[in-house]
């Protein structure tokens, strides 16, 4: 149902069913489509309140119809992720679209959010179906196993899935404080079994400056 066209446009074929997508990301469609803004993420009052509290401002719309709908956002590269009953953690700004059947929510990420510059909360997508995530440049998918943990620059991290524990790693030392930091003082360390999506670019983060 989700197809990539040219790497930067997502085509979704709909036969009366629906898709959730970032507000305003439709670029074209044929057939008949209806666009409806989702109030509070579609998870009822609780979801709405959570969103308000967390500041995870993910405004999404629900598109239903018959035909093909095309989505794109600021010429970002698009990556397709298939979920089979597991959970995807993704920065809200990097989520383009999901199957209507997938549940979206927010989760607390702790300190790493602060250094990641993306707030203390991140978006979760759960269930069985497809999701489309965006990256600045072509993303790579890195596998994490119990024997091979992975450390990622918070600015380059876009999403992860699987059974992973993440914690925030700081390499702040005397040199950093003296203004001679390497610029790599903060990382997110992933341990366990799963996949991490990394983009070849670093968005501006608090940690990036030290």
């Amino acid at each position: 149902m989700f197809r990539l066209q040219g790497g930067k446009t997502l085509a979704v074929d709909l036969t009366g069913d629906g898709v959730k997508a970032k507000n305003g990301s439709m670029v074209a469609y044929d057939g008949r489509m209806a666009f409806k803004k989702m109030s509070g993420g579609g998870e009822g009052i609780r979801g709405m309140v959570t969103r308000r509290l967390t500041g995870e401002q993910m405004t999404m719309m629900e598109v239903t119809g018959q035909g093909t709908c095309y989505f794109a956002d600021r010429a970002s590269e698009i990556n397709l992720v298939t979920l089979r009953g597991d959970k995807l953690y993704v920065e809200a700004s990097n989520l383009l679209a999901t199957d209507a059947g997938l549940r979206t929510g927010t989760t607390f990420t702790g300190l790493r959010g602060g250094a990641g510059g993306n707030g203390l909360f991140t978006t979760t997508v759960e269930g069985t179906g497809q999701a489309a995530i965006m990256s600045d440049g072509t993303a790579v998918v890195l596998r994490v196993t119990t024997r091979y943990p992975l450390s990622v620059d918070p600015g380059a991290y876009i999403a992860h899935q699987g059974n992973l524990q993440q914690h925030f790693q700081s390499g702040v030392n005397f040199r950093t404080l003296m203004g001679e930091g390497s610029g790599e003082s903060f990382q997110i360390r992933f341990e366990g079994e799963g996949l991490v999506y990394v983009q070849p670019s670093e968005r501006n983060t608090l940690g990036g400056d030290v």
Partner: protein
Amino acid sequence: MPFREINSKMVEATVVPGQKMYSQRGAMLAYRGDVSFTPNLQGGQGGLASMIGRRVAGEATPLMTVEGSGTVLFGHGGHHIQVIALAGDTLYVEADRLLAFDGTLQQSTMFMGSQGGVMGMVRGQVTGQGLFTTSLKGHGSVAVMAHGGVIELPITPGREVHVDPQAYVAHHGDVRNKLSTALGWRDMVGRGSGEAFQLELSGSGAVYVQASEEKL
């Protein structure tokens, strides 16, 4: 086919004696051979009437004439470039998206507001693009600019295509366009899905859509 795509952001044009080419002023990156670039005060073809038309229309993207013998590299602002070949049909494109085109093509300005009545007039306001669009007709190639990649969507009778006005780049063929709205009360109170206006294209032809909603 005078344009050769070097990469997604650069095209190479072959200029031969006796054949003119027009390009957006300042879009030349490099050239080889004996090539001259002259500012085109008339803003392309069509003589004085066309020039006045363009001034009035606000389609005043300055063009230059490229003549001589050699090869010229064109590119502009790091934008993605799409080469569109015309075989006797007409291409409609916003002037500021026009990078370069064959001198053999007939250029004119079309009033888009005449289609679709009042909504046609609104179109320019909503899209942030002019009420006038440049049309190119004949046999030859056109290089147009877009932000991000471009996809080509076919338009066939009975299967019209709706395009976000900001993502619209160009269209060709026997196509009618009108602005359609999906304005409900939700949009009025500022809770819209962000997809309140669409450009509806029907008939037969194709529309080029960019992978972004950003203006050039």
